[in-house]
């Protein structure tokens, strides 16, 4: 039982926590605000907080000049595709590990996690070369596969921990009731694990969306997602603060919203369940 604290103490906590929270959030807030300013207001001195003429022109310009929608679409396809593909491959594997454990299950799981630790730069050239040979460079399909492979260990792991919470007796009951393996997974396991599968999908979508090593190195134009789109602003264009802000806001807004929903799963997914 948490003890009741004095209102004074609670007010103090609240003030301090909000101050720190806003400070940490400030760069994002500032970016969003700036995206609604004109370029002149964006670099005004002293800086303008709310007392400026709100405008949407930056968003229009960004879309018009660099075809933002195409990058967005690439991001959606790459992040979504790799997540869906990963879940399809991971569900059977996680089922097997959670419900038919053997002596080797633990070793296989740990080995899978260890592939996640492989530094990307160590295998950059081989992948680059393979992509050229297979004609996958700058294709969405190629990136879907690579990002799926990167996140597969996390997907397997998260599903495994969720599945383990489902009592094995229920699956045995289904087996006694005459369900085939396919029916058991389809009618019993999957509906029961929906919350777990949903958070797994969410977290992995976010990780894939923000991935910025392979997406920068394996794309040029056609398959470039938002990470690459934003990176193109590292040129002097970045000095157009309002447009940079509009582009940034568009790139992070969808994921921020999803991210807030998945914060609990973040701990579970990224620490592989070692912190509860």
């Amino acid at each position, binding site marked *: 039982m948490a003890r009741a604290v004095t209102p004074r103490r609670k007010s103090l906590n609240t003030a301090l926590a909000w101050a720190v929270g806003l400070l940490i959030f400030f760069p994002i807030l500032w970016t969003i605000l700036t995206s609604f300013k004109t370029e002149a207001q964006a670099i005004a001195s002293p800086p303008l907080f709310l007392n400026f003429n709100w405008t949407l022109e930056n968003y229009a310009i960004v879309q018009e000049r660099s075809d933002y929608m195409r990058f967005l679409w690439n991001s959606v396809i790459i992040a979504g595709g790799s997540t869906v593909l990963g879940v399809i491959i991971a569900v059977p594997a996680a089922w097997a590990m959670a419900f038919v454990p053997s002596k080797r299950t633990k070793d296989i799981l740990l080995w899978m996690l260890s592939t996640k630790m492989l530094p990307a730069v160590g295998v950059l050239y081989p992948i680059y070369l393979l992509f050229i040979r297979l004609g996958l460079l700058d294709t969405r399909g190629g990136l879907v596969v690579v990002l799926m492979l990167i996140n597969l260990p996390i997907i397997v792991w998260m599903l495994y921990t969720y599945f383990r919470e489902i*009592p094995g*007796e*229920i699956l*045995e*009951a*289904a*087996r*006694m*009731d*005459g*369900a*085939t393996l396919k*029916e058991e997974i389809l*009618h*019993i396991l999957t*509906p*029961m694990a*929906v919350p777990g599968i949903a958070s797994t999908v969410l977290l992995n979508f976010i990780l894939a969306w923000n991935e910025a090593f392979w997406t920068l190195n394996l794309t040029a134009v056609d398959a470039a997602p938002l990470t690459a789109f934003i990176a193109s602003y590292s040129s002097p264009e970045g000095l157009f603060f309002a447009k940079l802000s509009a582009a940034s806001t568009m790139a992070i807004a969808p994921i921020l919203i999803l991210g807030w929903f998945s914060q609990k799963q973040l701990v579970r997914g990224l620490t592989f369940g070692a912190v509860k």
Partner: protein
Amino acid sequence: MGRIQLKSVTKSFGDVQVIPPLDLTIQDGEFTVFVGPSGCGKSTLLRLIAGLEDITSGSIDIDGADATDVPPAKRGLAMVFQSYALYPHMTVRKNIAFPLRMAKLDQAEIDKRVEGAASVLNLTDYLDRRPGQLSGGQRQRVAIGRAIVREPAAFLFDEPLSNLDAALRVGMRLEISELHERLATTMIYVTHDQVEAMTMADKIVVLQAGVIEQVGSPLELYRTPQNLFVAGFIGSPKMNFIEGEEASKHGAHTIGIRPEHIAVSDSEGTWSGKVSVSEHLGSDTFFHVHETGLAETITVRADGEVAFRHGDRIHLTPRADVIHRFDEKGLRIE
């Protein structure tokens, strides 16, 4: 139809043999209870019959046909699990219908059977609820409903009452017994509670460390336990065991006398001792007697009105015709 025959069945997990070769026949329509302390292999045995585990060697026949390699669903058996294992995302109706859906019965037949089971089990008003909205007893009934709609050759119960509170347990015990009377289907019931075993079974199988200690009707086990383990396990309070000189007088290594077979008196008797604790249950009184020179404690069951207290010296007389005698190996001497 449900005659189940186990022939030299063994089960090993890795190098550990949990069931040494075991033979057992369960007759059609019989209510058989597997009873024993936890870890005695009774649940494993049930899962072997269900087909949820492979047997390591031997064979299992169901209705005269070899079922050793038949998958669980095809054995014609229904199982009620300890946790009930209801599907939480389905309504009661869908839960009960699930095995029928898997068997691809037509919808009218499914509806008919589900309604039938629901009315037998008093679940008609709850058909559209989910398991989470039901009480423990109701969940238990849904689990049973899911089993009976399949009209199986035999029912398997794995400690089905252990998650219920004491009052409900007595009620469900009666309901399951009544169900057996009505369906007359073979039932195999696993429990660690000897009271459940005694009250429900036609035939009790007492297990310890994977080995069958004795098979018999409840009264057979009560009257003629074949060894010390069964003698101590069946009956409550436990049988008193006395070794040494007193046992030698009866020509045995150990003698056993049930608490209800000892008479108490304040003046005279074969043995005497000091009351350590007296437990008054109303109908009965249990005395735990020390300083008898026979064993650490002798438990006596007397009438509810007998009122000895802590520290009283009392006299005990065993009924000579119900003294059980055992040899050095713990086996019964007739």
